[in-house]
């Protein structure tokens, strides 16, 4: 038994399991409370209180929500493809959870793993996230769901391009695809005259940050890009026929996506866990920045009206894509000029 524990591979595996367990449960908890926070913030933005009946300040509301979803009757449409109908909600959650395995929440012990193409893994998982919506819309055997599903996948695929291109500016500056390296490259402090500010990429790549946040909104099907699940236009879009926990899983998957994209945005642009004070405070700074971005997501939802589908496509292809390309060219020229004097 002692020999078993001495094997370094198994040790690494064991600690990886522990970290994964913590992150998984932590993120599931954060997601349920994110739903609560959204309702509260939405309420206050609309000059009303959010949920405040269940428990003190309504803090037990997510538990009530989950309980309600569990007890609802589950309808499966008669002509639906049963296997894919059951599979689609699961596919909504898994890619977002896999992204958490490469995000550096803090310095050394707070990272599950560091692969040297971490950013590409995030892009790969967001590409795989398209499937849940496409399959969910198709397997419901309902034309509104199919339309919603196809529209949503077309939207996600279009905005993935601009998202990937906007991250290339960051890669050029950090000279690495590994998320840990990118955070390390942002820990330097710059002196601009009397002001010292952190070398985060949000200051040197503001356009890329803007494009990334807009495409993040579109990737996660959040307003103002949520036409595919619009209540008024398409019944409920691709999750029309889903009830009970399957709908809950879709909902959960959407918020999990929001959190994972916000984590990546914090890592790429806001300096990850870097902040004043000792390095071990890293995770606190990470959580603070993450909360700021999550609040931004919620804020935008209740501020802007929904984009029509052709406006959405116009924005993704004709505005964001050329801007991202221009950003890459300018960044590359700057990096070359800095390297060659």
């Amino acid at each position, binding site marked *: 038994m002692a020999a078993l524990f001495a094997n370094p591979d198994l040790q690494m595996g064991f600690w990886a399991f522990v970290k994964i367990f913590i992150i998984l449960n932590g993120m599931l908890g954060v997601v349920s409370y994110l739903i609560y926070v959204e309702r509260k913030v939405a309420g206050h933005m609309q000059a009303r209180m959010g949920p405040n009946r269940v428990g003190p300040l309504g803090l037990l509301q997510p538990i009530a929500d989950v309980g309600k979803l569990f007890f609802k009757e589950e309808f499966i449409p008669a002509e639906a493809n049963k296997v894919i109908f059951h599979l689609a909600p699961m596919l909504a959650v898994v890619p977002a959870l896999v992204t958490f395995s490469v995000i550096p929440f803090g310095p050394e012990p707070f990272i599950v793993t560091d692969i040297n193409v971490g950013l590409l893994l995030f892009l*790969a998982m967001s590409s795989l996230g398209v499937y849940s919506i*496409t399959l969910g819309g198709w397997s419901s055997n309902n034309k509104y769901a199919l339309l919603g599903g196809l529209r949503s996948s077309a939207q996600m*695929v279009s905005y993935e391009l601009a998202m990937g291109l906007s991250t290339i500016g960051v890669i050029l500056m950090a000279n690495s695809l590994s998320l840990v390296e990118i955070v390390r490259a942002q820990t330097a402090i710059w002196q601009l005259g009397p002001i010292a500010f952190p070398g985060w990429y949000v200051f040197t790549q503001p356009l890329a940050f803007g494009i990334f946040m807009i495409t993040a909104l579109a990737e996660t099907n959040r307003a103002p890009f949520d036409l595919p699940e619009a209540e008024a236009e398409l019944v409920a879009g691709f999750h029309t026929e889903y009830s009970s926990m399957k709908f809950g899983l879709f909902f959960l998957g959407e918020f999990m996506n929001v959190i994972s994209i916000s984590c990546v945005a914090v890592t790429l642009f806001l300096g990850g866990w870097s902040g004043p004070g000792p390095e071990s405070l890293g995770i606190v700074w990470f959580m603070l920045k993450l909360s700021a971005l999550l609040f931004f997501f919620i804020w935008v939802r209740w501020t802007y009206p929904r984009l029509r589908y052709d406006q959405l496509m116009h924005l993704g292809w004709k505005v964001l894509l050329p801007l991202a390309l221009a950003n890459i060219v300018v960044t590359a020229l700057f990096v070359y000029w800095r390297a060659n004097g």
Partner: protein
Amino acid sequence: MTEALFVGMGTAALISSLLVILHRNPVTSALFLVVAFCSLAGIYLLLHAEFVGMVQIIVYAGAIMVLFLFVIMYLNLKSDVETGIQIALRRGIGWLVGGVIGAEALWLFAKEWGVGPIVPELPGLRDPNTMAIGKLLYTQYLFPFEITSLILLAAMVGVIVVGKGRAQRPVHPAKPGPPPPRVAPPAAGLPAAPDPEAS
């Protein structure tokens, strides 16, 4: 450890590719193909080709197969129904040809063969995979790289032109018919002039 992972992922790739060609429903075939691609991506990761593995998921599993699924859903294809002697004959010939190729492959494997010239490992720290690929791609293989951009442009133009479908044939303009019957306009207040056809 690596071999065990390879055996697992290789089996997954083989079984899912078999199910791609054996399954009746095209959507399920497409999903099994996605599984096959992801297993292949895992094998690429085992072979220290991380960039290629991730690009495999992003491009093949994440874009090309989504395109396939789009088309299958757009055409609203149901499960294939394949019966009849014609089809059994065709299937038999297909498996026979497959068997012939398989026998050839087995024969080739049974021969003695070795790998070509191995490039010696340079001393010093190895570049990460992506950096090394970037260095090669933009210096030695720059011309093919630019050509691929032209290929993609040609494909885009081709898809748009082919996808638009044919324009409608021009309708022959109608021959001028008989002139409409002359009816005096009714004066204001008076009832309309009687219809010339009504008698």
